[in-house]
């Protein structure tokens, strides 16, 4: 039986890989399964689609196992300037998307990241480990399958004008943007800059906060109460925590104020030339073939479509002293509300690696 398998080659899997490597597990004892060789491929496509220029995450928004040194240190060294460090200390450092991607590429090359091109669709528990659908048996397995797909409102399915914000698109003369999160706000500004008239359709006023999840939930202090509560309570809390939001700041507000009549809020989609669905991703394990099968076959507990996990993001009934089945990325939000961020990937990886140290 092999030691470690990482299923899913996105950023969460990549962070886990770097962390396991850092913990001293030899590369030949880590099996990687991913449909794409570039860990940033999916993220890159989405960022390009919404024309994202800067990371929303702050100084620790990178793929390294430790929070330090991050991209702020890297940029400070490169520019021979203390400004990035000063901004980092003030929680105002946001790396550019090109810098982030360049860093990912450097890490990919230097770490020897070379996944087997395979899409795992079934995980079966065996004695002392897990079988990955003909690819072998492994003692410690991390599932980092990523977002299961793009969410498009039911009423817009089949509408020829509709495009998801994370799909490549240009802007027509009048653009209706559905949603109230970071992607929606980014689309407002992009469309206005392209000369379009923008109609924002949203069910609620956007929440304005620097990070998607309030900071105390990023550490043990805020997580302690979250982990103590029942799965149902946690699911309710997640609904509140994960409301669509985007950061406060003039860079977001001023373009909207300048736009005057070219930006307005309406209650429903009407006669706009183009409808951009900034409505995020499908939510819940039911949309992920691998996780859905695992839940169905093993009778795993879910609440509100979310997989119930232990605080260390392991699947309780399938994890014991001899084996580990852990989940990373968005599916790990019942363990860590910000699991779909780089910090979240690091949180899960740090805990996973503690278990991988046992042979």
């Amino acid at each position, binding site marked *: 039986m092999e030691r470690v398998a990482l299923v899913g080659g996105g950023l969460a899997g990549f962070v886990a890989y770097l962390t396991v490597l850092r913990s001293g597990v030899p590369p030949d004892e880590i099996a990687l399964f991913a449909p794409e060789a570039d860990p940033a491929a999916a993220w890159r496509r989405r960022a390009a689609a919404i024309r994202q220029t800067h990371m929303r995450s702050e100084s620790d928004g990178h793929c390294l196992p430790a929070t330090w040194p991050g991209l702020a240190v890297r940029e400070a060294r490169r520019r021979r300037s203390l400004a990035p460090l000063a901004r980092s*200390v003030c929680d105002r450092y946001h790396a550019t998307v090109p810098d982030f991607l360049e860093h990912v590429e450097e890490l990919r090359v230097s770490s020897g990241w070379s996944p087997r091109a395979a899409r795992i669709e079934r995980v079966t528990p065996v004695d002392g480990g897990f079988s990955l659908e003909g690819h072998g048996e492994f003692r410690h397995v991390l599932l980092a399958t990523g977002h299961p797909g793009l969410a498009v409102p039911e009423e817009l399915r089949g509408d020829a004008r509709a495009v998801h914000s994370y799909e490549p698109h240009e802007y027509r003369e009048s653009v209706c943007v559905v949603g109230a999160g970071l992607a929606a706000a980014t689309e407002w500004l992009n469309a206005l800059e392209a000369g379009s008239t923008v109609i924002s359709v949203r069910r609620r006023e956007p929440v304005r906060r620097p990070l998607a999840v309030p900071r105390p939930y990023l550490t043990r*202090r805020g997580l302690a109460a979250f982990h103590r509560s029942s799965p149902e309570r946690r699911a309710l809390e997640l609904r509140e925590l994960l409301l669509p939001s985007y950061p406060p700041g003039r860079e977001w507000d001023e373009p909207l104020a300048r736009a005057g009549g070219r930006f307005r809020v309406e209650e429903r989609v009407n006669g706009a030339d183009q409808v951009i669905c900034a409505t995020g991703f499908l939510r819940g394990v039911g949309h992920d073939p691998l996780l859905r099968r695992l839940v169905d076959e093993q009778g795993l507990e879910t609440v509100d479509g979310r997989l119930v996990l232990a605080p260390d993001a392991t699947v309780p009934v399938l994890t014991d002293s001899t084996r580990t089945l852990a989940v990373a990325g968005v599916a790990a939000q019942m363990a860590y509300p910000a699991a779909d961020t780089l910090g979240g990937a690091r949180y899960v990886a740090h805990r996973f690696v503690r278990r991988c140290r046992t042979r």
Partner: protein
Amino acid sequence: MSYTLIGRLESRLAALALPFAAALVLAAALAEWWPVGLAAAMLAAVVALDLVYHPVLRYQPGWAALPLGLLELGVVMAVVLALGVRAPLAVALALFAAAWLCAQVLGHALLPLWRLSYAEDGGELGRRGGALAAAAVAAPLAAAGGLWYAHLPPVVHLAAGVHQGPLVITRRERLVGEPGAVVRGGIVVAHKNVEISHVTVVGGVNGITVDGMRGVVLDHVTVLHPQEDGIHVRGEAITISHCTVDMTGVPYGQGIDISYNMDTGETMVDRCTVVGGQEGIVTHSSSAMLMHNRVERTTMRGISMTEMSMGGVMHNTVLHAKGIGILCGDHSTCMIDRNDVAGTTVDRASEDRERAGYGLVVEFGAVGDLGRNDLTDNPLTMGVFVGSLVHWQR
């Protein structure tokens, strides 16, 4: 970072480990205790502040280290002053700055590298890390405590009864008299850092003589009828408290005579009672603080600060002195405040105008900084003579 309370304390202890070790090395190198006192004061202040921070700061951004550092510096300095740690300011600031810098480097860089989940764990270092951090601080403290204990002077208990003197103390020790312990013929302190307490001295040329020995403490000593001075101090600053000196029948001796210690620090005389003698408490060319003393029935002056002395005469009571109650004389600089002087009598045997029963005299180029003294019940309240200067405190 959103610190947990344990994380905050463990991170703090880890950050203090290096400065603590530095303080210990400094203490050993200088053979002084103040670096250890300084480190302990720092520990007490910042740990207390951590307990305050915890409920207030749910999230602590990196920049907050600067204002919090300044706040901590202020509190540490206050604790240092309150505890009387005599650390040079520059060194104290340097040690604090080093500790602060250490905390930043550790918190932002080294601890996250050493323990990958440091940030997520709210600054907690894990079982081993926390124990290491605590040990790193406790070990220097324990070592310092052990060293301090090992260097405590031996305690010599003087049994009740009369011991024939003069008793000459030639080593560092604490001489503690049991009730009824009396030394006849005086005590001569011939070693530094000697402490004498609860001993009664009868007779002798001087009751207790301290000549050039630093760090001497006389506490609760009683001196009765020496031939010359009750307590005779030369060339070093010492501490005298809660003493009683009976000079009745000794017309030319001084109760407490402190002379020529200007360059060795400040002598403290606190809560002593002197009865009789020529001068109750007198300083010559010395730096001294004379506080809460009671002086009665002296034949020349109650309290004198003279011959370019410098210091304070405060909260004393001087009764029935002949000629002058309190004197600040001969180019001395004296802060004289909240003293009660009463019943001073005119020295009719003297033709000196200054001895006309003044409660307070400032003379011969002296500078008196005067506060609220009660001088009313004397023939004359105050006299200023021969080029002297008086400042009145508001």
